[in-house]
Protein backbone atom coordinates (compact mmCIF):
# COMPACT_ATOMS: atom_id res chain seq x y z
CA UNK A 1 0.00 0.00 0.00
CA UNK A 2 1.15 3.50 -0.73
CA UNK A 3 1.44 5.83 2.21
CA UNK A 4 1.60 9.56 1.80
CA UNK A 5 3.92 11.71 3.87
CA UNK A 6 5.24 15.23 3.99
CA UNK A 7 8.41 16.63 5.40
CA UNK A 8 9.90 20.02 6.00
CA UNK A 9 13.49 21.14 6.21
CA UNK A 10 15.13 24.51 6.36
CA UNK A 11 18.72 25.57 6.10
CA UNK A 12 21.19 28.41 6.09
CA UNK A 13 24.21 28.77 3.88
CA UNK A 14 27.02 31.30 3.56
CA UNK A 15 28.29 33.17 0.52
CA UNK A 16 31.99 32.94 -0.27
CA UNK A 17 35.00 31.32 1.36
CA UNK A 18 35.35 30.67 5.09
CA UNK A 19 37.37 33.69 6.31
CA UNK A 20 39.96 33.19 3.55
CA UNK A 21 40.24 36.06 1.10
CA UNK A 22 38.32 35.30 -2.08
CA UNK A 23 38.45 38.48 -4.08
CA UNK A 24 37.14 39.25 -7.52
CA UNK A 25 38.26 42.02 -9.79
CA UNK A 26 36.34 43.42 -12.74
CA UNK A 27 36.83 45.90 -15.54
CA UNK A 28 33.96 47.74 -17.20
CA UNK A 29 34.53 49.57 -20.45
CA UNK A 30 31.76 51.82 -21.71
CA UNK A 31 31.82 51.89 -25.48
CA UNK A 32 31.37 55.05 -27.55
CA UNK A 33 27.74 54.20 -28.25
CA UNK A 34 26.82 53.74 -24.61
CA UNK A 35 26.94 49.96 -24.60
CA UNK A 36 29.46 48.30 -22.32
CA UNK A 37 31.91 45.43 -22.04
CA UNK A 38 32.65 43.64 -18.78
CA UNK A 39 35.89 41.75 -18.27
CA UNK A 40 35.70 39.10 -15.59
CA UNK A 41 37.92 36.21 -14.64
CA UNK A 42 35.05 34.06 -13.50
CA UNK A 43 33.95 31.07 -15.56
CA UNK A 44 30.48 30.34 -16.86
CA UNK A 45 29.87 26.79 -15.70
CA UNK A 46 26.20 26.71 -16.52
CA UNK A 47 24.56 28.83 -13.83
CA UNK A 48 24.08 31.86 -16.03
CA UNK A 49 26.53 33.94 -14.02
CA UNK A 50 27.64 35.93 -17.05
CA UNK A 51 24.08 37.04 -17.68
CA UNK A 52 23.69 37.96 -14.01
CA UNK A 53 26.87 40.04 -14.17
CA UNK A 54 25.67 41.72 -17.36
CA UNK A 55 22.42 42.62 -15.59
CA UNK A 56 24.30 44.10 -12.64
CA UNK A 57 26.52 46.23 -14.88
CA UNK A 58 23.51 47.27 -16.97
CA UNK A 59 21.61 48.29 -13.86
CA UNK A 60 24.49 50.41 -12.62
CA UNK A 61 24.82 52.11 -16.00
CA UNK A 62 21.09 52.50 -16.63
CA UNK A 63 21.29 50.44 -19.79
CA UNK A 64 19.74 47.09 -20.79
CA UNK A 65 21.17 43.63 -20.25
CA UNK A 66 21.63 43.20 -23.96
CA UNK A 67 23.79 46.33 -24.07
CA UNK A 68 26.47 44.60 -21.99
CA UNK A 69 28.86 42.11 -23.48
CA UNK A 70 30.84 39.92 -21.10
CA UNK A 71 34.36 38.68 -21.75
CA UNK A 72 35.32 35.97 -19.30
CA UNK A 73 37.66 33.21 -18.24
CA UNK A 74 40.92 34.02 -19.96
CA UNK A 75 43.98 34.63 -17.80
CA UNK A 76 45.55 36.84 -20.47
CA UNK A 77 42.66 39.23 -20.84
CA UNK A 78 40.46 39.12 -17.77
CA UNK A 79 41.25 40.22 -14.23
CA UNK A 80 41.76 38.00 -11.24
CA UNK A 81 38.72 36.15 -9.93
CA UNK A 82 38.51 33.43 -7.31
CA UNK A 83 36.17 31.57 -9.63
CA UNK A 84 32.90 29.72 -9.89
CA UNK A 85 32.89 28.28 -6.39
CA UNK A 86 31.24 28.82 -3.01
CA UNK A 87 28.08 30.48 -4.41
CA UNK A 88 30.13 33.65 -4.60
CA UNK A 89 29.81 34.94 -8.15
CA UNK A 90 26.67 37.09 -7.84
CA UNK A 91 27.77 38.57 -4.53
CA UNK A 92 31.53 38.91 -4.85
CA UNK A 93 32.10 39.22 -8.60
CA UNK A 94 28.78 41.06 -8.82
CA UNK A 95 29.96 43.65 -6.29
CA UNK A 96 33.25 44.04 -8.16
CA UNK A 97 31.42 44.46 -11.46
CA UNK A 98 29.03 46.99 -9.98
CA UNK A 99 31.89 48.99 -8.46
CA UNK A 100 33.78 48.93 -11.76
CA UNK A 101 30.68 50.13 -13.59
CA UNK A 102 30.19 52.84 -11.00
CA UNK A 103 33.73 54.10 -11.61
CA UNK A 104 33.25 54.15 -15.36
CA UNK A 105 29.94 55.90 -14.84
CA UNK A 106 31.72 58.51 -12.71
CA UNK A 107 33.77 59.45 -15.75
CA UNK A 108 30.60 59.90 -17.78
CA UNK A 109 29.13 62.08 -15.05
CA UNK A 110 32.21 64.29 -15.10
CA UNK A 111 31.74 64.72 -18.83
CA UNK A 112 27.98 65.23 -18.63
CA UNK A 113 27.93 67.62 -15.66
CA UNK A 114 29.06 70.79 -17.49
CA UNK A 115 26.76 69.95 -20.38
CA UNK A 116 23.77 69.75 -18.07
CA UNK A 117 25.09 72.60 -15.96
CA UNK A 118 25.02 70.70 -12.68
CA UNK A 119 27.56 69.01 -10.46
CA UNK A 120 28.40 65.38 -11.16
CA UNK A 121 26.81 64.20 -7.91
CA UNK A 122 23.48 65.60 -9.06
CA UNK A 123 23.35 63.13 -11.94
CA UNK A 124 21.80 59.69 -12.28
CA UNK A 125 21.30 57.16 -15.06
CA UNK A 126 17.98 55.89 -16.36
CA UNK A 127 16.81 54.26 -19.59
CA UNK A 128 20.11 54.74 -21.40
CA UNK A 129 20.22 58.42 -20.41
CA UNK A 130 22.14 60.53 -17.97
CA UNK A 131 19.74 62.86 -16.25
CA UNK A 132 19.58 65.39 -13.47
CA UNK A 133 18.17 63.97 -10.26
CA UNK A 134 14.67 65.32 -9.80
CA UNK A 135 14.66 66.83 -13.29
CA UNK A 136 14.46 63.85 -15.65
CA UNK A 137 13.59 66.07 -18.56
CA UNK A 138 17.15 67.42 -18.38
CA UNK A 139 19.07 64.51 -19.83
CA UNK A 140 21.60 63.42 -22.42
CA UNK A 141 21.80 60.11 -24.20
CA UNK A 142 24.45 57.93 -22.56
CA UNK A 143 25.96 57.14 -25.96
CA UNK A 144 26.49 60.83 -26.71
CA UNK A 145 28.24 61.29 -23.38
CA UNK A 146 30.41 58.23 -23.89
CA UNK A 147 31.43 59.37 -27.34
CA UNK A 148 32.21 62.85 -26.03
CA UNK A 149 34.23 61.40 -23.15
CA UNK A 150 36.50 59.75 -25.68
CA UNK A 151 36.47 62.24 -28.53
CA UNK A 152 36.32 65.56 -26.74
CA UNK A 153 37.54 64.99 -23.20
CA UNK A 154 40.04 62.31 -24.21
CA UNK A 155 39.02 60.21 -21.24
CA UNK A 156 37.50 56.88 -22.28
CA UNK A 157 35.09 55.69 -19.58
CA UNK A 158 36.76 52.61 -18.14
CA UNK A 159 36.45 51.49 -14.55
CA UNK A 160 38.10 48.73 -12.63
CA UNK A 161 37.43 47.54 -9.11
CA UNK A 162 37.91 44.67 -6.73
CA UNK A 163 35.76 43.25 -3.98
CA UNK A 164 36.54 40.88 -1.16
CA UNK A 165 33.91 39.87 1.40
CA UNK A 166 34.41 41.35 4.86
CA UNK A 167 35.30 38.65 7.38
CA UNK A 168 36.93 38.34 10.80
CA UNK A 169 39.25 35.43 11.50
CA UNK A 170 37.92 32.72 13.80
CA UNK A 171 39.43 32.27 17.23
CA UNK A 172 41.42 29.01 17.02
CA UNK A 173 40.16 27.82 20.42
CA UNK A 174 36.48 28.68 20.20
CA UNK A 175 35.86 29.24 16.53
CA UNK A 176 34.29 32.60 17.29
CA UNK A 177 34.47 35.29 14.63
CA UNK A 178 32.88 36.38 11.37
CA UNK A 179 33.67 33.72 8.80
CA UNK A 180 31.34 35.02 6.10
CA UNK A 181 29.96 38.35 4.95
CA UNK A 182 26.43 37.09 4.54
CA UNK A 183 24.16 34.03 4.48
CA UNK A 184 21.07 32.85 2.64
CA UNK A 185 18.16 30.88 4.04
CA UNK A 186 15.64 28.46 2.61
CA UNK A 187 12.87 26.00 3.36
CA UNK A 188 11.83 23.04 1.27
CA UNK A 189 8.79 20.84 1.83
CA UNK A 190 8.52 17.43 0.23
CA UNK A 191 5.54 15.22 -0.36
CA UNK A 192 6.17 11.53 -0.93
CA UNK A 193 4.43 8.22 -1.41
CA UNK A 194 6.07 5.22 0.20
CA UNK A 195 5.16 1.71 -0.87
CA UNK A 196 5.05 -0.08 2.47
CA UNK A 197 5.57 -3.49 0.88
CA UNK A 198 8.73 -2.61 -1.04
CA UNK A 199 10.04 0.58 0.55
CA UNK A 200 9.93 2.37 -2.76
CA UNK A 201 9.74 6.13 -2.36
CA UNK A 202 8.14 8.34 -4.95
CA UNK A 203 8.72 12.04 -4.47
CA UNK A 204 5.54 13.71 -5.68
CA UNK A 205 6.14 17.37 -5.05
CA UNK A 206 8.70 19.71 -3.60
CA UNK A 207 7.86 23.26 -2.67
CA UNK A 208 10.92 25.41 -2.17
CA UNK A 209 11.17 28.90 -0.76
CA UNK A 210 14.60 30.40 -1.20
CA UNK A 211 16.32 33.56 -0.15
CA UNK A 212 18.91 34.96 -2.52
CA UNK A 213 18.59 38.59 -1.55
CA UNK A 214 17.38 40.48 -4.60
CA UNK A 215 16.83 37.99 -7.44
CA UNK A 216 18.89 39.64 -10.19
CA UNK A 217 17.22 37.27 -12.66
CA UNK A 218 14.28 35.32 -11.22
CA UNK A 219 14.26 32.86 -14.13
CA UNK A 220 17.85 31.86 -13.50
CA UNK A 221 17.22 31.64 -9.75
CA UNK A 222 14.37 29.23 -10.42
CA UNK A 223 16.66 27.21 -12.68
CA UNK A 224 19.25 26.94 -9.92
CA UNK A 225 16.65 25.83 -7.38
CA UNK A 226 15.13 23.24 -9.71
CA UNK A 227 18.53 21.83 -10.56
CA UNK A 228 19.70 21.83 -6.96
CA UNK A 229 16.59 19.93 -5.97
CA UNK A 230 17.30 17.24 -8.58
CA UNK A 231 20.73 16.81 -7.06
CA UNK A 232 19.08 16.69 -3.65
CA UNK A 233 16.66 13.98 -4.76
CA UNK A 234 19.58 11.86 -5.94
CA UNK A 235 21.45 12.50 -2.69
CA UNK A 236 18.36 11.52 -0.70
CA UNK A 237 17.34 8.34 -2.44
CA UNK A 238 19.67 6.99 -5.09
CA UNK A 239 23.23 8.16 -5.44
CA UNK A 240 26.25 6.51 -3.86
CA UNK A 241 29.72 5.63 -5.06
CA UNK A 242 30.31 2.07 -3.87
CA UNK A 243 33.62 0.32 -3.27
CA UNK A 244 34.67 -3.30 -3.18
CA UNK A 245 36.72 -4.69 -0.32
CA UNK A 246 39.96 -3.72 -2.02
CA UNK A 247 38.92 -0.08 -2.38
CA UNK A 248 37.97 -0.01 -6.04
CA UNK A 249 34.77 1.59 -7.22
CA UNK A 250 32.16 -0.89 -8.38
CA UNK A 251 29.63 1.46 -9.98
CA UNK A 252 31.72 4.03 -11.82
CA UNK A 253 29.32 4.50 -14.70
CA UNK A 254 25.91 6.01 -15.27
CA UNK A 255 24.28 2.59 -15.60
CA UNK A 256 24.99 1.70 -12.01
CA UNK A 257 25.45 5.08 -10.37
CA UNK A 258 21.81 5.96 -10.05
CA UNK A 259 21.00 9.65 -10.55
CA UNK A 260 17.54 11.05 -11.23
CA UNK A 261 16.14 10.89 -14.75
CA UNK A 262 13.25 13.06 -15.89
CA UNK A 263 10.90 10.30 -14.72
CA UNK A 264 12.31 10.41 -11.21
CA UNK A 265 11.81 14.11 -10.66
CA UNK A 266 8.79 15.42 -8.79
CA UNK A 267 6.81 18.52 -9.57
CA UNK A 268 8.93 21.38 -8.26
CA UNK A 269 7.45 24.67 -7.11
CA UNK A 270 9.89 27.52 -6.57
CA UNK A 271 9.20 30.65 -4.53
CA UNK A 272 11.70 33.44 -4.02
CA UNK A 273 11.25 35.12 -0.67
CA UNK A 274 11.37 38.91 -0.33
CA UNK A 275 14.82 39.81 0.87
CA UNK A 276 17.42 42.51 0.47
CA UNK A 277 21.03 42.50 1.58
CA UNK A 278 22.51 45.99 1.69
CA UNK A 279 26.02 44.56 1.28
CA UNK A 280 25.22 42.82 -2.01
CA UNK A 281 24.97 44.25 -5.50
CA UNK A 282 21.47 45.76 -5.64
CA UNK A 283 20.66 43.67 -2.58
CA UNK A 284 21.63 40.33 -4.06
CA UNK A 285 23.33 37.46 -2.22
CA UNK A 286 23.59 34.17 -4.12
CA UNK A 287 21.79 30.92 -4.80
CA UNK A 288 23.96 28.20 -6.40
CA UNK A 289 24.80 25.70 -3.69
CA UNK A 290 22.03 26.30 -1.13
CA UNK A 291 19.44 24.92 -3.52
CA UNK A 292 20.50 21.31 -2.91
CA UNK A 293 21.03 21.59 0.85
CA UNK A 294 17.62 20.91 2.39
CA UNK A 295 16.07 18.57 -0.20
CA UNK A 296 17.31 15.29 1.26
CA UNK A 297 16.33 16.30 4.78
CA UNK A 298 12.81 17.24 3.63
CA UNK A 299 12.39 13.95 1.77
CA UNK A 300 13.68 11.89 4.69
CA UNK A 301 11.30 13.67 7.04
CA UNK A 302 8.47 12.96 4.60
CA UNK A 303 9.39 9.26 4.58
CA UNK A 304 9.28 9.31 8.37
CA UNK A 305 5.90 10.99 8.26
CA UNK A 306 4.60 8.39 5.79
CA UNK A 307 5.72 5.15 7.41
CA UNK A 308 7.19 6.11 10.76
CA UNK A 309 10.66 4.99 9.78
CA UNK A 310 13.68 7.15 10.50
CA UNK A 311 16.40 6.31 8.00
CA UNK A 312 19.65 7.68 9.38
CA UNK A 313 22.00 6.95 6.53
CA UNK A 314 21.84 8.25 2.99
CA UNK A 315 20.84 7.34 0.42
CA UNK A 316 17.48 6.11 1.68
CA UNK A 317 17.22 3.35 -0.88
CA UNK A 318 14.01 1.36 -1.10
CA UNK A 319 15.86 -1.49 0.57
CA UNK A 320 16.78 0.66 3.59
CA UNK A 321 13.28 2.07 3.90
CA UNK A 322 11.82 -1.41 3.64
CA UNK A 323 14.23 -2.75 6.25
CA UNK A 324 13.03 0.03 8.53
CA UNK A 325 9.40 -0.84 7.90
CA UNK A 326 10.08 -4.52 8.62
CA UNK A 327 11.95 -3.74 11.80
CA UNK A 328 9.14 -1.46 12.94
CA UNK A 329 6.55 -4.17 12.27
CA UNK A 330 8.60 -6.73 14.17
CA UNK A 331 8.89 -4.29 17.06
CA UNK A 332 5.16 -3.63 17.07
CA UNK A 333 4.41 -7.35 16.93
CA UNK A 334 6.68 -7.87 19.92
CA UNK A 335 4.93 -5.14 21.87
CA UNK A 336 1.54 -6.65 21.10
CA UNK A 337 2.72 -10.07 22.27
CA UNK A 338 4.29 -8.58 25.33
CA UNK A 339 1.17 -6.53 26.06
Amino acid at each position, binding site marked *: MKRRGRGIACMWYPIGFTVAANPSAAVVKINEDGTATLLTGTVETGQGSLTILAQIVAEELGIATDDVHVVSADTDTTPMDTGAIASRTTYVTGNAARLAAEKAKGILFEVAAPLLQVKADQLEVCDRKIQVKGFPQRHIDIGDVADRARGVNGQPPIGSATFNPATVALDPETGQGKPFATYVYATQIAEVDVDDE*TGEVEVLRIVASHDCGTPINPMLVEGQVEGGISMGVGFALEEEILFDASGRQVNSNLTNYIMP*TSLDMPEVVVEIVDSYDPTGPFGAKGVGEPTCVSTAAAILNAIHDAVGVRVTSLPATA*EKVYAGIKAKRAQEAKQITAG
Partner: protein
Amino acid sequence: MRAFDVFTAKDSRHAVALLAEHAATSKVKVLAGGTDLLADLKFASASHAPDVVVDISRIEDLRSIAVTGDGLSIGALVTHTEIMRSPLIRDMFPAMVNAAHTIGAVQTRNLGTLGGNLVTAVPSVDSGPTLVALDALVTVLGPAGRRQMPLAEFFVGPRKTALKPDELLLEILIPTTSLGKPTCFLKFGLRKGQALALVNVAASFWVDRARNAFVAPRIALGAVAPKVVHASTAEAYLEGRAIAPEAMVEAGRLAVGDAKPISDFRASAEYRRDLVAVLTRRALEGAYELAKAKQSEK
Protein backbone atom coordinates in the same frame (compact mmCIF):
# COMPACT_ATOMS: atom_id res chain seq x y z
CA MET B 1 36.77 0.89 -28.96
CA ARG B 2 39.27 -1.59 -30.39
CA ALA B 3 39.46 -2.23 -34.10
CA PHE B 4 37.38 -4.99 -35.64
CA ASP B 5 36.05 -5.92 -39.02
CA VAL B 6 32.37 -5.59 -39.81
CA PHE B 7 30.57 -7.90 -42.20
CA THR B 8 27.04 -6.96 -43.08
CA ALA B 9 24.57 -9.80 -43.52
CA LYS B 10 21.96 -9.47 -46.27
CA ASP B 11 19.59 -12.05 -44.87
CA SER B 12 19.53 -14.66 -42.14
CA ARG B 13 21.14 -17.35 -44.30
CA HIS B 14 23.93 -14.98 -45.20
CA ALA B 15 24.38 -14.16 -41.54
CA VAL B 16 24.74 -17.82 -40.64
CA ALA B 17 27.19 -18.28 -43.50
CA LEU B 18 29.25 -15.34 -42.23
CA LEU B 19 29.19 -16.75 -38.73
CA ALA B 20 30.27 -20.15 -39.97
CA GLU B 21 33.02 -18.58 -42.02
CA HIS B 22 34.54 -16.49 -39.24
CA ALA B 23 33.66 -18.35 -36.05
CA ALA B 24 36.30 -20.98 -36.68
CA THR B 25 39.23 -18.56 -36.85
CA SER B 26 38.12 -15.37 -35.12
CA LYS B 27 36.28 -14.06 -32.14
CA VAL B 28 32.93 -13.11 -33.59
CA LYS B 29 30.09 -11.04 -32.20
CA VAL B 30 26.70 -10.47 -33.72
CA LEU B 31 25.45 -6.91 -33.94
CA ALA B 32 21.68 -6.43 -33.94
CA GLY B 33 20.55 -3.23 -32.21
CA GLY B 34 23.99 -2.76 -30.75
CA THR B 35 22.79 -1.19 -27.51
CA ASP B 36 24.30 -3.92 -25.37
CA LEU B 37 27.11 -5.05 -27.64
CA LEU B 38 28.67 -1.68 -28.36
CA ALA B 39 28.36 -0.56 -24.75
CA ASP B 40 30.20 -3.74 -23.75
CA LEU B 41 32.91 -3.26 -26.37
CA LYS B 42 33.69 0.38 -25.54
CA PHE B 43 35.81 -0.51 -22.55
CA ALA B 44 36.47 -4.15 -23.41
CA SER B 45 39.93 -5.57 -22.73
CA ALA B 46 42.01 -7.14 -25.48
CA SER B 47 40.98 -10.65 -24.46
CA HIS B 48 37.30 -9.81 -24.56
CA ALA B 49 37.19 -7.79 -27.79
CA PRO B 50 36.04 -9.41 -31.03
CA ASP B 51 37.96 -9.40 -34.31
CA VAL B 52 34.85 -9.70 -36.41
CA VAL B 53 31.39 -8.29 -36.00
CA VAL B 54 28.58 -9.65 -38.12
CA ASP B 55 26.06 -6.88 -38.56
CA ILE B 56 22.57 -8.34 -38.88
CA SER B 57 20.79 -5.02 -38.35
CA ARG B 58 19.91 -4.70 -42.03
CA ILE B 59 18.26 -8.09 -42.38
CA GLU B 60 14.69 -7.55 -43.45
CA ASP B 61 13.31 -11.06 -42.92
CA LEU B 62 13.51 -10.94 -39.12
CA ARG B 63 11.28 -7.94 -38.52
CA SER B 64 7.71 -9.20 -38.71
CA ILE B 65 5.10 -9.51 -36.01
CA ALA B 66 2.39 -11.89 -37.17
CA VAL B 67 -0.05 -14.52 -36.04
CA THR B 68 0.61 -17.76 -37.85
CA GLY B 69 -0.81 -21.21 -37.45
CA ASP B 70 1.71 -21.85 -34.70
CA GLY B 71 1.02 -18.75 -32.67
CA LEU B 72 2.32 -15.21 -32.46
CA SER B 73 5.65 -14.96 -34.21
CA ILE B 74 7.97 -12.07 -33.48
CA GLY B 75 11.12 -11.64 -35.55
CA ALA B 76 14.36 -11.41 -33.60
CA LEU B 77 15.08 -7.93 -34.98
CA VAL B 78 11.79 -6.39 -33.88
CA THR B 79 12.73 -3.44 -31.70
CA HIS B 80 11.31 -2.70 -28.28
CA THR B 81 9.65 0.40 -29.74
CA GLU B 82 7.99 -1.74 -32.42
CA ILE B 83 6.70 -4.10 -29.74
CA MET B 84 5.25 -1.15 -27.82
CA ARG B 85 3.51 0.10 -30.93
CA SER B 86 2.26 -3.15 -32.36
CA PRO B 87 -1.56 -3.17 -32.18
CA LEU B 88 -1.46 -6.94 -32.23
CA ILE B 89 0.81 -7.16 -29.19
CA ARG B 90 -0.93 -4.32 -27.39
CA ASP B 91 -4.17 -6.18 -27.73
CA MET B 92 -2.96 -9.67 -26.90
CA PHE B 93 -0.15 -9.05 -24.45
CA PRO B 94 -0.10 -5.67 -22.75
CA ALA B 95 2.48 -7.24 -20.44
CA MET B 96 4.92 -7.41 -23.34
CA VAL B 97 4.34 -3.75 -24.04
CA ASN B 98 4.95 -2.93 -20.39
CA ALA B 99 8.09 -5.02 -20.34
CA ALA B 100 9.42 -3.35 -23.48
CA HIS B 101 8.63 0.04 -22.00
CA THR B 102 10.83 -0.64 -18.98
CA ILE B 103 13.89 -1.31 -21.11
CA GLY B 104 16.36 1.58 -21.19
CA ALA B 105 14.94 4.78 -22.65
CA VAL B 106 13.45 5.82 -25.98
CA GLN B 107 16.84 5.87 -27.72
CA THR B 108 17.75 2.36 -26.60
CA ARG B 109 14.28 1.01 -27.34
CA ASN B 110 14.47 2.42 -30.86
CA LEU B 111 17.66 0.49 -31.56
CA GLY B 112 17.47 -2.46 -29.20
CA THR B 113 15.83 -5.63 -30.44
CA LEU B 114 13.87 -8.36 -28.76
CA GLY B 115 16.28 -10.97 -30.06
CA GLY B 116 19.27 -9.00 -28.87
CA ASN B 117 17.79 -8.58 -25.44
CA LEU B 118 17.17 -12.32 -25.13
CA VAL B 119 20.55 -13.35 -26.52
CA THR B 120 22.31 -11.08 -24.03
CA ALA B 121 20.72 -13.35 -21.41
CA VAL B 122 21.57 -11.28 -18.38
CA PRO B 123 19.63 -12.65 -15.40
CA SER B 124 17.60 -9.42 -15.26
CA VAL B 125 16.64 -9.57 -18.96
CA ASP B 126 13.40 -7.59 -19.07
CA SER B 127 11.94 -9.34 -22.11
CA GLY B 128 12.48 -12.71 -20.50
CA PRO B 129 9.89 -13.29 -17.77
CA THR B 130 6.78 -12.46 -19.80
CA LEU B 131 7.84 -14.72 -22.65
CA VAL B 132 8.87 -17.53 -20.34
CA ALA B 133 5.52 -17.23 -18.57
CA LEU B 134 3.83 -17.55 -21.96
CA ASP B 135 5.78 -20.73 -22.73
CA ALA B 136 7.41 -18.99 -25.68
CA LEU B 137 9.63 -20.94 -28.07
CA VAL B 138 12.62 -19.67 -29.97
CA THR B 139 13.73 -20.68 -33.42
CA VAL B 140 17.41 -20.62 -34.27
CA LEU B 141 19.15 -21.15 -37.57
CA GLY B 142 22.52 -22.83 -37.97
CA PRO B 143 24.50 -24.42 -40.77
CA ALA B 144 22.50 -27.62 -40.21
CA GLY B 145 19.16 -25.83 -40.43
CA ARG B 146 16.55 -24.68 -37.99
CA ARG B 147 15.83 -25.88 -34.50
CA GLN B 148 13.28 -24.83 -31.95
CA MET B 149 13.38 -24.90 -28.18
CA PRO B 150 11.52 -23.38 -25.24
CA LEU B 151 12.88 -19.97 -24.30
CA ALA B 152 13.28 -21.26 -20.73
CA GLU B 153 15.84 -23.74 -22.09
CA PHE B 154 17.43 -21.25 -24.45
CA PHE B 155 18.59 -19.38 -21.35
CA VAL B 156 21.44 -21.39 -19.88
CA GLY B 157 23.03 -19.08 -17.33
CA PRO B 158 24.24 -15.52 -16.83
CA ARG B 159 25.03 -14.20 -20.31
CA LYS B 160 24.85 -17.75 -21.64
CA THR B 161 22.37 -19.20 -24.09
CA ALA B 162 22.01 -22.47 -25.98
CA LEU B 163 23.04 -20.63 -29.14
CA LYS B 164 26.13 -22.10 -30.81
CA PRO B 165 28.74 -19.69 -32.20
CA ASP B 166 27.49 -20.25 -35.74
CA GLU B 167 23.81 -20.02 -34.94
CA LEU B 168 21.43 -17.11 -35.21
CA LEU B 169 18.24 -16.43 -33.29
CA LEU B 170 15.45 -16.02 -35.84
CA GLU B 171 12.15 -15.64 -34.09
CA ILE B 172 10.25 -15.87 -30.88
CA LEU B 173 7.01 -17.79 -30.98
CA ILE B 174 4.24 -17.51 -28.44
CA PRO B 175 2.29 -20.71 -28.99
CA THR B 176 -1.39 -20.76 -29.89
CA THR B 177 -2.19 -22.16 -26.46
CA SER B 178 -0.96 -18.93 -24.90
CA LEU B 179 -2.54 -16.43 -27.25
CA GLY B 180 -4.48 -13.84 -25.29
CA LYS B 181 -3.58 -15.41 -21.98
CA PRO B 182 -3.92 -12.79 -19.25
CA THR B 183 -0.41 -11.88 -18.22
CA CYS B 184 1.13 -9.23 -16.04
CA PHE B 185 4.76 -8.09 -15.94
CA LEU B 186 6.20 -6.13 -13.05
CA LYS B 187 9.68 -4.81 -12.62
CA PHE B 188 11.33 -3.32 -9.60
CA GLY B 189 14.34 -1.14 -10.31
CA LEU B 190 16.41 1.43 -8.47
CA ARG B 191 14.75 4.33 -10.26
CA LYS B 192 11.95 4.92 -12.73
CA GLY B 193 13.86 5.89 -15.85
CA GLN B 194 16.51 3.65 -17.44
CA ALA B 195 16.29 1.15 -14.62
CA LEU B 196 17.87 -2.26 -14.32
CA ALA B 197 15.67 -4.80 -12.58
CA LEU B 198 16.42 -5.87 -9.03
CA VAL B 199 13.58 -8.31 -9.56
CA ASN B 200 11.18 -8.72 -12.45
CA VAL B 201 8.22 -11.04 -12.46
CA ALA B 202 5.61 -12.14 -14.94
CA ALA B 203 2.48 -14.06 -14.02
CA SER B 204 0.05 -15.61 -16.43
CA PHE B 205 -2.95 -17.89 -16.12
CA TRP B 206 -6.26 -18.81 -17.66
CA VAL B 207 -9.37 -18.60 -15.57
CA ASP B 208 -11.68 -21.56 -15.29
CA ARG B 209 -14.86 -19.54 -15.31
CA ALA B 210 -17.09 -22.20 -13.87
CA ARG B 211 -14.93 -22.71 -10.79
CA ASN B 212 -13.13 -19.33 -10.88
CA ALA B 213 -9.90 -21.28 -10.63
CA PHE B 214 -6.35 -20.96 -11.92
CA VAL B 215 -5.64 -22.88 -15.09
CA ALA B 216 -2.13 -23.32 -16.47
CA PRO B 217 -0.64 -20.76 -14.09
CA ARG B 218 2.85 -19.61 -14.97
CA ILE B 219 5.12 -17.44 -12.92
CA ALA B 220 8.52 -16.44 -14.25
CA LEU B 221 11.14 -14.67 -12.16
CA GLY B 222 14.01 -12.57 -13.43
CA ALA B 223 17.17 -11.27 -11.73
CA VAL B 224 16.84 -13.71 -8.85
CA ALA B 225 18.61 -16.73 -10.35
CA PRO B 226 21.38 -17.30 -12.90
CA LYS B 227 18.67 -17.09 -15.55
CA VAL B 228 14.94 -16.46 -15.83
CA VAL B 229 13.23 -19.27 -13.94
CA HIS B 230 9.75 -20.63 -13.45
CA ALA B 231 8.44 -20.41 -9.91
CA SER B 232 7.51 -24.06 -10.23
CA THR B 233 6.41 -24.61 -6.65
CA ALA B 234 4.10 -21.64 -6.81
CA GLU B 235 2.77 -22.72 -10.20
CA ALA B 236 2.03 -26.23 -8.92
CA TYR B 237 0.30 -24.80 -5.87
CA LEU B 238 -1.98 -22.60 -7.95
CA GLU B 239 -2.93 -25.15 -10.60
CA GLY B 240 -6.65 -25.75 -10.31
CA ARG B 241 -6.92 -23.77 -7.07
CA ALA B 242 -9.76 -21.31 -6.58
CA ILE B 243 -8.74 -17.74 -7.27
CA ALA B 244 -8.54 -15.86 -4.00
CA PRO B 245 -6.30 -13.19 -2.49
CA GLU B 246 -4.92 -15.68 0.03
CA ALA B 247 -3.88 -18.03 -2.76
CA MET B 248 -1.98 -15.23 -4.44
CA VAL B 249 -0.23 -14.33 -1.21
CA GLU B 250 0.71 -17.96 -0.69
CA ALA B 251 1.96 -18.25 -4.27
CA GLY B 252 4.16 -15.23 -3.61
CA ARG B 253 5.52 -16.88 -0.50
CA LEU B 254 6.22 -20.11 -2.40
CA ALA B 255 7.85 -18.25 -5.29
CA VAL B 256 10.48 -17.03 -2.84
CA GLY B 257 11.59 -20.64 -2.47
CA ASP B 258 11.91 -20.95 -6.23
CA ALA B 259 14.25 -17.95 -6.39
CA LYS B 260 17.97 -18.16 -5.76
CA PRO B 261 18.95 -14.52 -5.56
CA ILE B 262 22.41 -13.27 -4.80
CA SER B 263 23.55 -10.23 -2.91
CA ASP B 264 25.36 -7.63 -4.96
CA PHE B 265 25.96 -3.92 -4.82
CA ARG B 266 22.44 -3.26 -6.04
CA ALA B 267 20.54 -5.18 -3.39
CA SER B 268 20.81 -7.96 -0.85
CA ALA B 269 19.47 -11.45 -1.51
CA GLU B 270 17.13 -11.03 1.44
CA TYR B 271 15.55 -7.91 -0.02
CA ARG B 272 15.22 -9.56 -3.42
CA ARG B 273 13.42 -12.48 -1.78
CA ASP B 274 10.96 -10.10 -0.11
CA LEU B 275 10.41 -8.39 -3.44
CA VAL B 276 9.74 -11.73 -5.15
CA ALA B 277 6.87 -12.41 -2.74
CA VAL B 278 5.33 -8.97 -3.21
CA LEU B 279 5.80 -8.73 -6.95
CA THR B 280 4.55 -12.26 -7.57
CA ARG B 281 1.38 -11.55 -5.64
CA ARG B 282 0.91 -8.24 -7.42
CA ALA B 283 1.57 -9.77 -10.82
CA LEU B 284 -1.06 -12.42 -10.13
CA GLU B 285 -3.47 -9.69 -9.06
CA GLY B 286 -2.66 -7.75 -12.21
CA ALA B 287 -3.21 -10.75 -14.46
CA TYR B 288 -6.49 -11.44 -12.74
CA GLU B 289 -7.63 -7.85 -13.24
CA LEU B 290 -6.84 -8.27 -16.91
CA ALA B 291 -8.72 -11.56 -17.06
CA LYS B 292 -11.76 -9.95 -15.50
CA ALA B 293 -11.56 -6.99 -17.88
CA LYS B 294 -11.35 -9.33 -20.85
CA GLN B 295 -14.28 -11.30 -19.56
CA SER B 296 -16.44 -8.22 -19.19
CA GLU B 297 -15.52 -7.12 -22.71
CA LYS B 298 -17.06 -10.28 -24.06
